[in-house]
């Protein structure tokens, strides 16, 4: 055989050296991993503490960890923090539940039937790129400043994304699995309910996990603009009176709640979809 070029003389020899830290798509030893996790949590905390302790910073600009803890205790004792948290969670809960309830079946139908996809995908694809916060003035105009505009905002922010993401997970159901079901005597309806739906449950849970994070951000944005209670409202009030420590308290609470919701969905995924756990 004579190929047109003497390739061996043109290519550099390479070896891949063993490594621990830079392993691609492989696990690292658990001690290393817990050390790194600890560093990622402690480093910002220690830096924050060091700056406020040694750095002569105005606490109105950056409060120290102690001041933030004190503010947290103060807000907690008075019941304000709990009231605001519940208000925000309630809005997210209602708006997200409605959006999920409607978007999941619509997403499954869009993924399963090209006809329904053709009917809805152009509209949804367009709506998805309209930032939900940009609807706030309209919603206030149409629905006033009560709970309705905030819940509707969350609905708008979640519904289109969630429908399209659920639709995409349905497209990953292997065609042969659907055909195998027909060969076993399943109707289209059976196939939709007993094969496609269980197959996409992990994907749906994942889509909901991601979109709940978006909903949680939206409620804060909505409350920043117009609300009488809620964590976003508390931040905007605290900002007006330069109570920076309270802003920090609210930010930390918002972050913690978001993290807990995420972990909750991950646990749900693990417990309901053991069969899929190796895929992710």
């Amino acid at each position: 055989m004579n190929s047109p070029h003497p390739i061996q003389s043109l290519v550099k020899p390479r070896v891949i050296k063993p490594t621990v830290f830079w392993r691609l798509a492989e696990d690292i030893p658990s001690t290393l991993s817990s050390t790194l996790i600890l560093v990622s949590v402690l480093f910002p905390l220690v830096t924050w503490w060091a700056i406020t302790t040694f750095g002569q910073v105005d606490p109105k600009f950056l409060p120290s960890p102690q001041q933030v803890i004190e503010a947290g205790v103060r807000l907690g004792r008075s019941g304000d923090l709990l009231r605001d948290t519940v208000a925000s969670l309630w809005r997210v809960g209602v708006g997200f539940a409605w959006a999920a309830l409607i978007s999941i079946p619509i997403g499954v139908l869009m993924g399963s039937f090209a006809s329904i996809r053709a009917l809805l995908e152009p509209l949804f694809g367009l709506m998805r790129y309209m930032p939900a916060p940009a609807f706030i003035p309209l919603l206030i105009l149409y629905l006033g400043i009560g709970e309705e505009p905030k819940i509707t905002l969350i609905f708008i922010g979640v519904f289109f994304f969630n429908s399209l993401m659920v639709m995409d997970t349905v497209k990953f159901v292997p065609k042969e699995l659907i055909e195998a079901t027909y060969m076993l005597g399943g109707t289209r309806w059976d196939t939709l309910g007993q094969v496609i739906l269980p197959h996409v449950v992990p994907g749906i849970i994942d889509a909901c996990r991601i979109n709940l994070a978006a909903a949680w951000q939206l409620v804060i944005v909505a409350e920043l603009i117009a609300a009488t209670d809620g964590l976003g409202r508390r931040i905007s009030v605290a900002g007006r009176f330069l109570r920076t420590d309270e802003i920090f308290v609210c930010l930390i609470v918002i972050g913690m709640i978001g993290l807990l919701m995420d972990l909750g969905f991950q646990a749900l995924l693990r417990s309901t979809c053991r069969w899929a756990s190796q895929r992710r």
Partner: protein
Amino acid sequence: MFLQIKDLHKNFWTRQGELVVLKNITMDIHQGEFVCALGASGSGKSTLLRQIAGLDQPTSGEVRIEGRRIVGPGPDRGMVFQHYTLYPWMNVQANTEFGLKLQGVPRQVRREQASYYLSVVGLTQFARALPRELSGGMKQRVAIARALASEPKILLMDEPFGALDVHTKEAMHEFMLDLWQRTKITVFMITHDVEEAVFLSGRIYALGSRPGTIRKEMVINLPHRDHTVKRQAIFHDYRDELMDLMRKHGQEALAAVA
């Protein structure tokens, strides 16, 4: 005539134009026969099986089972696919029962039926395992049990052992023959493996490629069917004849492409 394929043509429209995949296919398969269609990769074997399954409609010609024309998929034909098609969230027992469940068989009956066919394929101990905990050979045995559980008129198999190693494959061959003799089921199997076809079938249709046509129909008469027969001259004669035929077609196909 049990399964009857008459003048079947299948064309696909692709970006390069019209592709003739199957041309002039006529086959007859009798009740209780074990027939193989043998052909190289790309000769249209899966396409042929999909027409019989009713998952696809022929461009012209027809397929009949017991005189009735096939218009769509249905559980009267048990299908074992080329790739693994078990439901990953169901355990082996639930996978095997699923066809019966879809057809409305009461729970107790379908449980017993599935257990019986799991014992036929030798997987009783794995009834509670999930598909991903099984080896490739075991997965295909579950797929066979699942297809058999509805007691179809014919078992259609698309290279069911193509992904298995030689030894597992041999074990599956013995298993298939044993199963066929015990259940008396009609089997139409597709393969590119000449020895597999000769060892298992009573009759072979050898397909040529591009377009897929029947080049030869061959009746196999082996004195007995166990692995020792593979060393006998008669087995070699069948095998060599088919190998020569396929080699010739392969060269023709290559020349046609070049």
